[in-house]
């Protein structure tokens, strides 16, 4: 393996984006959706997640380390591409560009989001509905979160397509096309779940 380090790292990068990061993303957005059913049900769910056994170890090994690896190698990948969507105006080429673009947007968003929530909770803030309500009632932050959620979900859905192709599951043009539609559906559904939650926090509906 040592001699194929680049191969190993890139395949690991692709895998980590789906498991665990992609699974965490879905879990995160689904659990947050409790906000739509009211303050109390969100607080119950959030405190359940926050009080999971070994929560810090789970966070480190399921979220922080994989995310850090994915982000650092990802930024390197972004800078090794020379985007040419103007000259080669094809759908896949656009998705290739957007995958890199949303990767960077998501990285900025997550850094801010982690600082504003997890770090503040660690410093003593209460993890409850009020924390998110306080952030999202500001229109600027609401739109920042909308952009952040959309780009994270796009990056996940299109990355899932990339994962299936780069591991060799989807080979034929037909299968790749069907996977494109399937991941588009995932993008729409997961985006709805995320945005709906943001609206609940921001406008209380």
């Amino acid at each position: 393996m040592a001699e194929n380090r680049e191969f190993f790292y890139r395949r690991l990068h692709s895998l980590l984006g789906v498991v665990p990061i992609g699974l965490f993303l879905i879990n995160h957005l689904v659990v947050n959706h409790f906000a739509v059913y009211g303050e109390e049900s969100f607080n119950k769910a959030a405190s359940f997640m926050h009080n999971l056994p070994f929560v810090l170890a789970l966070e480190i090994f399921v979220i922080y380390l994989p995310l850090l690896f994915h982000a650092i190698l990802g930024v390197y990948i972004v800078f090794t591409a020379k985007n040419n969507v103007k000259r080669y105006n094809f759908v896949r080429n656009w998705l290739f560009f957007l995958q890199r673009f949303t990767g960077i947007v998501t990285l900025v968003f997550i850094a801010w989001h982690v600082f504003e929530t997890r770090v503040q909770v660690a410093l003593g803030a209460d993890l409850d509905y009020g924390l998110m309500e306080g952030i999202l009632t500001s229109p600027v932050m609401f739109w920042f979160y909308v952009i952040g959620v959309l780009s994270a979900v796009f990056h996940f859905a299109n990355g899932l397509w990339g994962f299936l192709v780069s591991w060799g599951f989807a080979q034929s043009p037909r299968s790749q096309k069907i996977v494109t539609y399937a991941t588009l559906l995932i993008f729409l559904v997961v985006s709805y779940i995320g945005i709906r939650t943001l609206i609940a926090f921001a406008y209380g509906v």
Partner: protein
Amino acid sequence: MAEQKTVTFIITRQDSPDSTPYDETFNVPYRKNMNVISGLMEIRKNPVNAKGEKSTPVAWDMNCLEEVCGACSMVINGVPRQSCAALVDELEQPIRLEPMSTFPVVRDLVIDRERMFDALKQVKAWIPIDGSYDLGPGPRMPEKKRQWAYELSKCMTCGVCLEACPNVNDKSNFIGPAPISQARLFNAHPTGEMNASERLEGLMEEGGLVGCGNAQNCVQVCPKGIPLTTSIAAMNRAATIQSFKNFFGSDNAH
């Protein structure tokens, strides 16, 4: 007398590998059924640019003149393609000619495609049949498979797929789509199959398969219609299996 129709070429020229490129415009007399190469030949006959100044003949590469050798690839009106198959009647004027930017320029439109041949060496894109004695006839190939493999064998190392690929550039060491598809071709051959793992190892080396980001421009621009992205995905699967064999397998027999 009817006015002589002309064709205008705007050519990105470069006098030597390290000198600065510049544009030069030429008007050449139109003839019926011209291709870009016949236009370049006119310039060579009479190297006077549009301003009426005496210039030097434009250098370009060519060989077969029937779109099977790949030597005359250049960027024509923004599209990388073979200049022998680019008909003047089908092109918008003025016709812009540029060397393919992915490769080092030797002079004017002549580029050095050596990196592609190095990549073919990396993935061992050949079938070793030399021995110190007669190895006898190899296994036969089913006709259906031969017809399928023929499509992959049309690759002429022209470099158009590398030119269109956003991941083939001076910041990355990605070998590009063409050699990956060639590894698939030789791995599909009944005799070539005997060395399949060696080619997969080549694909797993630096600059290999994982350099692909699936922008899939290659399959759109390939002049031979080779299913490059299918080849890449197929090699992705084969390399996945090979890497598992390498790591979890009991020995290195495969």
